[in-house]
């Protein structure tokens, strides 16, 4: 029995539905971090999917759509996907950014805002860096438990002879931006450990990205046009 067979059988039983509750839960968790298993599951969903054509349809009760629409209209956070939260908040943030863009000019504008904390949730925070009023340029996520930050360039053009630089500013540390290093505009993701900043600082800090001469700011402070963002808690 090869390893591939083992994965395919596990994925096949998952899709077939014959795993018990504990096994299902384990596979559900593993598929999120094991691409080979996730791909094997998707392959079985495609292979066996045609069988659903042979299941007689049944009319759901009247009024179910209205109940669903109520539920999606008033999200409670429960089961909310991080992507959705991000997307919705991106839009809200865009409006703020448009309003603020006149003020932003060449400054790192500091807006620190911490939403109500929900302690039972995983503490992941997201910030959206706005290049202009149409598309986010960078997405930043912070996992507060591990204090690992990652920045993803979404629509940031690499600028010849320039570098993007990431900053953190905290009132608790005097409010002046401190460099967190340069960001590769091309790479998928830049990660930084924030171990030297404690949790309370990270949680309330404001992050900024500025466009600097190649190699970073010569002064140790942001000198070029900056994008600014606040951290927003997401539910997962």
């Amino acid at each position, binding site marked *: 029995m090869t390893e591939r*067979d083992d994965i*395919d*059988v596990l994925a*096949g*039983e998952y*899709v*077939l*539905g*014959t*795993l*018990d*509750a504990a096994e*299902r839960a384990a596979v559900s968790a593993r598929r999120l971090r094991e691409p080979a298993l996730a791909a094997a599951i*998707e392959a079985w*969903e*495609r*292979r*066996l*999917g*045609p*069988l*659903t*054509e*042979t*299941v*007689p*349809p*049944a*009319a*759901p*009760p009247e009024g*179910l*759509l209205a*109940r*669903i*629409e109520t*539920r*999606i209209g008033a999200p409670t956070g429960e*089961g*909310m*996907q991080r*992507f*959705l939260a991000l*997307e*919705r908040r991106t839009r809200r943030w865009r409006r703020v950014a448009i309003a603020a863009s006149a003020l932003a000019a060449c400054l790192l504008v500091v807006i620190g805002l911490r939403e109500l904390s929900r302690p039972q949730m995983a503490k992941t925070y997201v910030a959206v860096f706005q290049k202009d009023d149409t598309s986010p340029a960078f997405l930043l996520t912070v996992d507060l438990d591990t204090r690992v930050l990652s920045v993803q360039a979404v629509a940031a053009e690499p600028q010849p002879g320039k570098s993007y630089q990431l900053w953190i500013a905290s009132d608790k540390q005097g409010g002046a931006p401190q460099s967190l290093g340069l960001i590769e505009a091309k790479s998928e993701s830049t990660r930084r450990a924030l171990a030297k900043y404690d949790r309370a600082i990270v949680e309330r800090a404001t992050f900024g990205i500025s466009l600097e001469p190649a190699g970073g700011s010569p002064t140790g402070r942001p000198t070029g046009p900056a994008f600014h963002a606040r951290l927003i808690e997401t539910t997962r």
Partner: protein
Amino acid sequence: MGERGEVPLAGTTGFALSKSVNATAGTLVALMHRVAARDRQAFAALYTATSAKLYGIVLRILQRRDIADEVLQEVYVQIWERAGLYDVTKAAPITWMAAIARNRALDEVRRKKPLSIEDAPEALNLASDEAHPLDRMEQSEQLQRLRQCLERLESDRREVVLLAYREGMSREALGQRFARPPATIKSWLRRSLLQLRDCLSQ
């Protein structure tokens, strides 16, 4: 595409092609994109086009309308939330949606006490074997192909696969039904799955 309705597969688990999604796959893809863009009208249209199929799927597994009602709501909430993650290159929209529905229903049914043989699928008597021309030739061909591969399995093993997939029967319930220990069912499943995989990749 001649013999639709009747199929040479075992009795209680015989195939019956069903009235399902009337929208074409292309329409569903367009709707999915609009749903991903938070278009509520598109979401309502998607629900209208697909809810009978998904309800049929979850009801078949859960066998109780009250539970199926709740699960179907959760399924569509998930579809709304995850629409942005739908990848047209990986699966047809209905395949993706059906996978969400089956997963949710299976999670639910596995959390509960396994159904005994007395509560077997016939209890709900859902079947309505009306033959119906499929709108999507492509899907039909996939089903034809799957059927050919299923027919190569021994009949007991084929029935196990179908009862598991469509009725959501657990290994224990299947063991009862076929008078075998669950471990035997597990080894049947293992062989059947590998055989199916290899047959479908030919």
